[in-house]
């Protein structure tokens, strides 16, 4: 049983820590740098090959998806680096002893830590995501299919990885937990690529493996949603000579909006993982 007030106290504490320890400032500085570089890079692309038709539009879309992939990687790393030391070190160095001797439950500490870091990640994903996509559009004039939703999917992906890292941090040393979360993120992405190939080449086993991987860690569901939102509309693809526009969404350079069922699974996964994390933390000796 958790109540809101203590969760908010810990969330505020976590946010203040992010500000004071210059996590937010570092992210803001890096974002500014990336946005400027993005604008510069895409301006050069636009100069070399202005968007005059669907082929150039497809090319720009693919670079945009790659940029988004780089950003999703940065977000994932940020989520893991922020989440992996969120609980464990506070137990090991005794910081939590003084906190938990107050009228606050372990579950509330866990949820507060998660909430505080989630706010940091979501704000970062949304603000930096829009700025970067804005820089692309400004430099090239390319308007992806659904630019407004793409950063939201990326934020969701970061939340999945943050949850994984925090859950691991209740039991596993930060470095090991962080490494595990990063590997899991990479494997999930790779499984998504293989699953896409499975669909495109009609391989049942690959398709099932992809689905299973997404059930275990749904970060790739959200990444594919972001990539899909950054892809040009199907008519552009067809005009650009993509033989099977419907299958293009299974390529590593594209994706598709996840079904409501998959989105629900992402939410259930986060809630379930947090519940497991709370159980693990409750059973841990301080």
């Amino acid at each position, binding site marked *: 049983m958790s109540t809101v007030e203590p969760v908010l106290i810990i969330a505020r504490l976590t946010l203040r820590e992010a500000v004071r320890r210059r996590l937010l400032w570092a992210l803001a500085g890096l974002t500014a740098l990336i946005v400027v570089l993005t604008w510069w890079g895409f301006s050069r692309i636009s100069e070399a090959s202005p968007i005059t038709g669907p082929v150039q539009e497809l090319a720009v879309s693919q670079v945009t998806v790659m940029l988004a992939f780089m950003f999703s990687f940065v977000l994932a790393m940020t989520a893991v680096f922020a989440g992996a030391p969120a609980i464990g070190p506070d137990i090991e160095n005794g910081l939590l002893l003084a906190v938990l*001797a107050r*009228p606050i439950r372990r579950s509330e500490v866990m949820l507060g830590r998660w909430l505080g870091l989630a706010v940091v990640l979501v704000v970062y994903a949304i603000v930096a995501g829009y700025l970067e996509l804005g820089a692309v559009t400004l430099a090239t004039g390319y308007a992806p299919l659904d630019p407004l939703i793409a950063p939201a999917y990326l934020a969701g992906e970061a939340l999945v990885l943050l949850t994984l890292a925090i859950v691991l941090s209740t039991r596993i040393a930060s470095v090991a937990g962080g490494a595990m979360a990063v590997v899991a993120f990479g494997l999930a992405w790779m499984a998504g690529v293989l699953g896409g190939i499975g669909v495109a080449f009609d391989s049942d086993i690959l398709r099932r493996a992809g689905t299973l991987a997404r059930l275990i860690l749904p970060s790739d569901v959200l990444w594919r949603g972001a990539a899909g939102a950054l892809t040009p509309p199907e008519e552009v693809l067809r005009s650009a000579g993509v033989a099977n526009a419907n299958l293009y969404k299974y390529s590593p350079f594209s994706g598709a909006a996840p079904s409501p069922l998959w989105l629900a699974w992402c939410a259930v996964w986060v809630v379930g993982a947090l519940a497991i994390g709370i159980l693990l933390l409750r059973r841990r000796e301080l």
Partner: protein
Amino acid sequence: MTGTAAGAASEAAATARGAAIETHELRKEFGRIVALAGLTMTVARGEVFGFLGPNGAGKTTAVKLLLGLSQPTAGDGRVMGAPLGDVAVRRRIGYLPELFRYQGWMSAREVLALHCELARLPRAGWEQEIRAALELVGLVDRADGRTGTFSKGMQQRLGLAVALLGRPDLVVLDEPTSALDPVGRQDVRRIIGSLRDRGTTVFLNSHLLTEVERVCDRVAIVDHGRVVSGLSMAELTQGRGVSLRVTNLGGVGAEVAARYGPTRLDGEWLLVDGIAGDAIPQLVGELVARGGSIHAVVPTRHTLEERFLSLLGATPDTGGGVLDTEGAVGSEGAPASDESIPAKAKP
């Protein structure tokens, strides 16, 4: 808790008022290791209670169980009337952990404000609470310094300030002076004294016997996760005696002294255990009357350390020649005592 009639009476009183802490056969196992074998004790409200034991006796484990920071494997207990693990009762408890560590990126003032918030103290009173706590532990000058830059001693002082916020009814101090210099230790004794005056129950977990001896009303000695003795400080240190340096008497002196209590002759030192204080002049008079030369008369009493060691089955270090619980004396030399009397020579 085991104890004498007086101890039992004190416990009965504690129960009648609603004890601050009661535990019954509290047990904690970590895998196959038994950290606490079966802790049964009662701490009355308003008393300063010393919880003593050698390293690894299960003291810190017991504290964590009392505060709900750890779940007992078996047994039960109540703290301030609430069952172990109750969250709401922690509003009334202050705690200084043995492993004290606070957010290094915060100032001392901010750490205290955080704990005011966590303890749900009314916001209007925070500033005053924080100022009072900082003054009490002598950290006013460093209130706005980052705690990450604090020395261990300063961090422990901060921990003490955190524990005292909001005038808790029960203050649990786990080795509160482990990082403090002698001045700091004196400050802690002063603070514990003021808590006692205020009616606050203090649970002092320590292995520093002199510290406990000076401030505690009652003591429980634990070993291997069990209370081996629980007595008032007076009971623990009772059993007075006297050491006399006598010459010219030989065995006669011991025969005379035997009428006053168990005696032992050790070189020139005649040791008499259990003799009442007002009987000492009479004994001295008799010895002098029989031709003895008295060079020194030193009343002795058991120190907590002696009782502690004897209860734990260890041999007390009697290098100072102090009586132990068996009435025996160790090596030669002037007996240690806190109240030496100048020697009176034979007329």
